[in-house]
């Protein structure tokens, strides 16, 4: 009952906002926060990792306290589903009062929404106060998302880099390239696996293999077509064909995401895992999931890295509230907490050296954890292929390996 009243109330506010002006102006911070007060922001974000969920819950409590914004985390299993939901709303002519106010996004999902004109049209993110500290020089992936310009349509939230983990007590000298991994797997069958694509970490593994083996890396930066796909992926699928019988369960089952894969390392079912977050193992050690003998490593030739963002759909119901939340998520306070491996351990998008002394000190005090590599040892960052590659890779993977009969 309280909810219906609230829904009616927020719909009213929505209408009031509509009457004033199209969408709120982030450069007028005072007016923005005034408009945001009392709004309910439905934040659609992947909900498969309890640590992240807890962090979002903390952010929700804080914005509620400071700005009176009610943040609701809608836990999704696959962000693609959110894109589909927004598309469906557009198709149904629901141009305002949409069900998604803010979405955690990057890569092909961002590109789909951007190309279809389904994001808030103006470059709002760069006008937010916290954007001033974003490290646009040192972290170019905050400006180009899977080779597509961001154009201020999404606010950077965190950095991701593919990092591998091993248990020192079991495996002292892990393989540091895809070729070495295959060799190791031949000697240790059943001790490696990857999450089943289209899980994003599983798909990232495919991209990493592709990058290391494809004859011409430059092709990957361009939109894919039949000819380039065939030429570029032949070595990838030859590799996967050879790897499959050497995988955990001989490739007849796969972990459904990297959390499940981490559990396999904890259970000694596999010896090498990976995550898209350099401090994942430290966080897991802190919460007793992994033994403290687990360490991180990266490949000699570098690993895939990208940034992740939050974006506001064109038909969001609580645009001002969503902007206030996006700004808070980018703030030094929220970013420092996010980087703490005891909380989440997701690297910041900010230029820590450029922060005011007090804020910088918070970052400097962070213990990254014994299993986390310091930034200078994370190695080269390989850029994501053009966003069009992913869907093709996933379809082809499902055709070749998704059926075990």
């Amino acid at each position: 009952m309280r909810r219906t009243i609230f829904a009616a109330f927020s719909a009213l506010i929505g209408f009031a906002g509509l009457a004033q002006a199209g969408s709120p102006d982030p450069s007028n911070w005072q007016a923005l926060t005034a408009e945001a007060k009392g709004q309910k922001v439905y934040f659609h974000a992947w909900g498969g990792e309890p640590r992240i969920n807890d962090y979002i819950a903390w952010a929700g409590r804080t914005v509620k306290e400071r700005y009176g914004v009610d943040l609701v985390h809608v836990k999704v299993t696959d962000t693609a589903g959110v894109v589909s939901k927004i598309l469906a709303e557009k198709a149904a002519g629901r141009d305002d009062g949409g069900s998604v106010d803010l979405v955690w996004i990057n890569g092909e999902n961002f590109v789909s929404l951007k190309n279809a004109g389904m994001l808030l049209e103006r470059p709002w993110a760069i006008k937010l106060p916290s954007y001033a500290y974003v490290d646009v020089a040192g972290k170019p992936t905050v400006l180009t998302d899977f080779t597509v310009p961001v154009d201020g349509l999404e606010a950077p939230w965190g950095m991701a880099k593919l990092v591998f983990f091993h248990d020192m007590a079991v495996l002292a000298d892990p393989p540091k390239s895809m070729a070495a991994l295959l060799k190791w797997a031949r000697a240790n069958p059943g001790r490696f696996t990857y999450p089943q694509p289209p899980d994003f970490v599983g798909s990232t593994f495919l991209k990493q293999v592709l990058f290391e083996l494809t004859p011409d890396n430059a092709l990957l930066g361009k939109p894919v077509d039949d000819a380039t796909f065939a030429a570029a992926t032949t070595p990838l699928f030859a590799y996967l064909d050879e790897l499959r019988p050497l995988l955990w369960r001989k490739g007849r089952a796969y972990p459904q995401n990297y959390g499940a894969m981490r559990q396999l390392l904890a259970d000694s079912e596999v010896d090498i895992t990976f995550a898209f977050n350099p401090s994942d193992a430290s966080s897991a050690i802190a919460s007793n999931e992994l033994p403290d003998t687990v360490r991180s490593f990266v490949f000699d030739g570098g690993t895939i890295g990208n940034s992740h963002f939050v974006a506001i759909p064109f038909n969001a119901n609580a645009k001002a509230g969503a902007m206030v939340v996006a700004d808070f998520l980018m703030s030094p306070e929220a970013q420092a907490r996010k980087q703490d491996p005891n909380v989440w351990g997701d690297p910041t998008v900010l230029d820590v050296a450029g922060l005011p002394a007090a804020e910088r000190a918070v970052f400097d005090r962070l213990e990254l954890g014994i299993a986390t590599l310091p930034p200078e040892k994370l190695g080269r960052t390989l850029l994501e292929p053009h966003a069009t590659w992913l869907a093709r890779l996933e379809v082809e993977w499902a055709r070749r390996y998704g059926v075990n009969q």
Partner: protein
Amino acid sequence: MARVLAPVPNRPGSPLLILLPVLAFALLIGPVVAGLLGAVLPALGFLPTLGGTSLSLAAFEELSTEPGLWWSCWLSLSIGLVTTMISFLIVMVFVAGWQGTRAFGFVERLVSPMLSVPHAAAAFGLAFLIAPSGALMRLVSPHLTGLTRPPDLLIVNDLWGVSMMAGLVIKEIPFLMLVTLAALPQARSRELSRVTAGLGYGRLAGFTHAVMPLLYRQIRLPVLAVLAYATSVVDVAMILGPTTPAPLAVRVLQWQSDPDLHRRFVAAAGAVLQLGVTAFALLIWLTGERVMARLCRIAAPSGHRYVRDRTGRIAGAGAMILSVAIIVAGLVVLAAWSAAGLWRFPDAAPLSFSLANWARALPSLVAPLINALAIAAAASGFAVILALGALEYEARAGKTPTIRALVVLFLPLLVPQIAFLFGLEIVFARLALTGTLAAIVVVHLVFVFPYVLLSLGDPWRSWDRRYGHVTHALGKSDNTVFWRVRLPMLTRPVLTAAAVGFAVSIGLYLPTLLVGAGRWPTITTEAVALAAGADRRLIGVTAFIQAILPFAGFALALAIPAVMFRNRAQMRPQG
């Protein structure tokens, strides 16, 4: 005053009262029909919001090119049939072999608690037990197996769905047991068994020849409901089922959330295909029924008495006890994980226990818990009101339920959830109802109401109507009979029915997920969302809470009458 001592004549119920059964029937049929239309039309290419305005079979053509589609169908079909067959056999052999014994009474008391454990929690418990790195392997390693690392065996998520069948069987046994227990008196099982025993038949043979024909008629619809459920279940399949490829219902859900909107048509076609697979499974079962009946008719006059059925009886009891033991052991393992510190293979117990997992998990479980309680309370409350209305109408109008009415009652349980929920979501989206509490409660009601009515029907109908005659004789109205006599006397079954409805609602996954649009996370949607990968400790906490909620409902159902009637010795439960 002539009618005072005469039985109340049959007469139509009051005009207002008839609204309740009408509403109940509309509730059962409406969403199913609307949902099926909402799936069939897009499957044929008609979905104007996505630009589909003409009818074609393109979606089915595209569906047929999906890798592994036929294997997915085979999985759904075989898992459904095998699960139903095994559960049915275990229950029948156990009842036949042990009816009237102390062991039977023991199992009888366990049925309701086992039934109230949600499918997802039971599935998690099983997975944590039987995985190569699971509790059983840890108990025997390394001393017996010599293993310090878990063997690379495909047990959970196996390609043929065997572990999924096991997870379903342990949950369907209590359900079939409950409906069988309710039907035994009507089948006059005790009396008939005495006759066959007197004629020298073994327990199993006597039961098969004399009791089964009567009993099966009574439990046929619930058995078919089990079959329909097992062919199309999603949550258990996501936890225990194969993934390369997954059973059909899981894949329909995946197609539905594909970012390429065009795939919605494929998903709709998949939903229709699921309907076909379930219908085919039902057809096979119905054919099997006829064959069995014929075989029994041929065997009956042969005179074989099959006196030596000890092995069969013991197997039946063993299977029954095993299924209960698996659920209980699963819950124990869930509880252990929920409080575990570092717990590596092959340690039989965690290095340390702590409440840190609970402290970590609880804050984010408060909202799902409140949502689950609110939805379950609303759905079971409305369901009880509707059921009371329908039963009271039936009583006042002097009607008895027909088979047709029963089929309607079971309709939402006989149609695969994914098939009509998928379409229902489209219909709700058109009406801008998706994600509203009202929509969720209505959808929960569709599934809760049949169970509530089934649970309440027998005690309500078997109430001694002479109490009503006496009340009428005192010059009171029908309404007074209802409010002052019948309802208070039947407080206990009413509350039990509410608890059954509550438990059903707590366990519902797909309806909450699809109609709630993620805005109403419940303890069950959280638990299944964690299935894919989260830490076992958090799965332990979540699934354990999920499992004990229905218990809380049943405990309340017992406690309330005890408090209400503390000064009314005659109203308290006998024995």
